């Protein structure tokens, strides 16, 4: 499974990079989301994956009796998911605003012509 996840990470990052090289603003946003997801999976993998052993202590016990999944990467990813949602939500609304203003999804339309002289 680790190898599959490693391939998945590569694909997510690759797709993210490809998308942020596009001219379309929506694609740019999707690319950023891919990169964020890729980073999450990367952190998840590096903590070591464990099947069926969530880091929750048994009702009866006060401490873990068995092996359990590493809680730290999970805490990190949880924070990352929430923050990236904030970013995405703001970006989506901003996109709509830009679209309303310039009637285009093309990043190049946002460039103001530069002055030639310095």
């Amino acid at each position, binding site marked *: *499974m*680790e*190898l*599959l996840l*490693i*391939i998945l*990470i*590569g*694909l997510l*990052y*690759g*797709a993210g*990079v*490809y998308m942020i090289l*596009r*001219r*379309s603003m*929506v694609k740019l946003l*999707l690319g950023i989301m891919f990169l964020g*997801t890729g980073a999450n*999976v990367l952190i998840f*993998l*590096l*903590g070591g994956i*464990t*099947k069926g052993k*969530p*880091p*929750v*202590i048994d009702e009866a016990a006060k*401490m*873990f009796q068995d092996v359990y*999944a*590493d*809680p*730290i990467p*999970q*805490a990190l*990813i*949880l*924070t990352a*998911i*929430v*923050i990236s949602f*904030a970013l*995405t*939500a*703001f970006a*989506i609304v901003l*996109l*709509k605003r830009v*679209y*309303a*203003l310039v009637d285009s*999804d*093309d*990043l*190049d339309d946002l*460039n103001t012509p530069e002055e030639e002289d*310095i």
Partner: protein
Amino acid sequence: MLLAVLSGLIFSIVLVFFGRAFKAKWSILIPILPTILVIYFAQMIPTISSGKGFLQHYDWVPSLGINFEFQLDGLSSLFALLITGIGSCIFFYGRAYLKGHPYFDRFFGYLLLFMSAMLGVVLSNNILLLFIFWELTSISSFFLIGFNNDSADSRKSAITALSITGIGGFFLLLALVLMGNIAGTYTITELIQHRDTILNHQFYPLIIGLLFIGAFTKSAQFPFHFWLPGAMKAPTPVSAYLHSATMVKAGIYLLARFTPILGNHTYWNTTLMVVGGITMLYAAIHSLFRIDMKAILAYSTISALGILTFLLGVGTKEAVVAACVFIVVHALYKATLFMVTGIVDHETHTRDITVLGGLRKVLFPVAIAAFLAALSSAGFPFLTFGFVGKDLIYEATLHYTNADWTWILTGATVATNIALVSAGFMAGIKPFVGPLPEKFEKVHLPYKAMWIPPLILAILGVFFGVLPAIAGDYFTTAASNTIWGMNTESYLKVWHGFNTVFTLSVVTLLGGTLIYAINKPSLAKLARIEKLNSISPQRIITGFANDIVRVGHWYTGIFHNGYLRSYHFKIILFAEALLAYRLWMSGPISLDMWDLTYPDLYEVAVIFILIGALYLVVSTASRLTAVVAMSVIGYCICLIFVIYSAPDLAMTQFTIDTLTTVLFVLVLYKLPPFINMTNRGIMVRDAIVATGFGIILSLVALKVWSEPISTEISDFYGENAYLLAKGKNVVNVILVDFRGIDTMFETVVLSIAALGVYSLIRLRLKSSEKE
């Protein structure tokens, strides 16, 4: 002495606030200051010439070794007297010259600032303090050259002068800091005691190299000389003061000041002799072809500065004495000639020597001053100080330590002086002799304040010529003692008898007169000389500067073209290179197959659905398809979290993914489909870069995963979640308890984003904003 140095600075600040008052009524107060200063320095002459000096010390930034340390010894006294003495003449002259000028107060503000800075340069006993004043002179010179700020030529010349002297200053600072660090002190009087340490240090050639760049740029030595003729765009009093008598001699002062510390070394002497020699010859010959009086004087000034550098390079006792005398000689006659030029320009509105003539009939006292100065510059025997100076120069070259070189050096100086004699005659005599053209008949004498100062200086030149011992005793001997480090006997005599030196002087004078008689400079000749400019240092250096600008444009065009994706492209490419290099260096990846978890079939299915959705997002032309596929990816990740023991993550991911999709669809449903905006080539290029990045990241992940990890912190949280925080879900405990404050700030971030979203949605578009 601190007050003496800073008084000009203070006065110029006063001018900033009360300039209006000083423009008319109180303008007489301005030249009083240099006059007071010249008296102040003059009353110290007896002490100085008896061999004593003054030292003063005020703390400023002691921790950095920068302090107000001043010393008045023979050399600085000579320069201080020149600065304040000629300064007084120039101030009186300038007041009349610029009467009624709208920027009158500004002009004197700059001039006072300059005088202050220049006094600071020659009186500083601390090399860092010296550097500060050195830069101030460059800055005030910049303002004065660009004084006629509505002329593009002026502005360009000012910038050229500032960049050349500024670059030189930068190198000078390097030299000074290096020297100070080697010797462990920044005080000049202490540096002299460390002479041997510096001389034997491996950085010695570097230090003098850097110091030379500083001195040569300031003193307009070849190949940095070209800013000086351009600096003649400044009003004439400025040219007389800064660009011939004082500021350009700062480089000479620097060399003289450091001769006891760094001098008398083969590198030092040879470089100075070669550079000074080239400069004096090159500029002297150039001066013969000019028709503008100021240009003639500019080139002959460069040539004189070359002679001074050359003499310091020769470095014998005779040469040092000659240099000190020549500084005074040159300052006296050149300031006079410049002021005369100013008067001619002021009254006739031209400086073209091919047009001017016969002005003695209308400007008689001015003609006398010019005539005396021209004779002094020619070294006319028995009567002028120039003769004494020239004698000493020949004396120095004839007695050079290496006999093989004697005749080469003497020949070069004779040739230079012949050209200078002719240049002096062209600027000082030509405009005043011959018939008076009709259009100049109405020319009349200007204010007394304009023609008396040059006359005083010219007469002083004659006075010292007749009684050179006075000049020697009071000014130059003390200065040459400082440079030489020991007592130099005074050589200053009018008559040495009929010897080689006298013969050479006569040859020089006759040769110069002959050239003056034959050489008729004209526009045509000037044009021919200008053609040679394509190989001149000016062309090369300004061309180089333009190239730098061009490289800047090119660089900006490539790296800052304003397209976001192009920035991304470069950043990612760079990151790939860096990561690939690091991966390569970190050696092979060793994978332990036993550590791997074997996936069940449904897990593999999830991964494949994910990859399919990923492909769909990248390739689809429909916005809605992309958003839906994106949500499929999110849910698949969610499933992975569920399977691999992360229920909290799964819940969060599920919620967030749903929300994002809803938001996307709600907000973006009316957008058009993607248009294919780029061609195939670029897409392939991007795909290659993206694939590379993906592969590298996979390898990084593999590499990190295969390394052992420490679980110490995780164990701590696992063990203490219930014991310390009374919670059984460890992830939640970490977030809300152990790292509670982090989570609080995360909430703040979320609220800010929410506020942003809310206000963007509520903000109504004005019809005028819509394009």
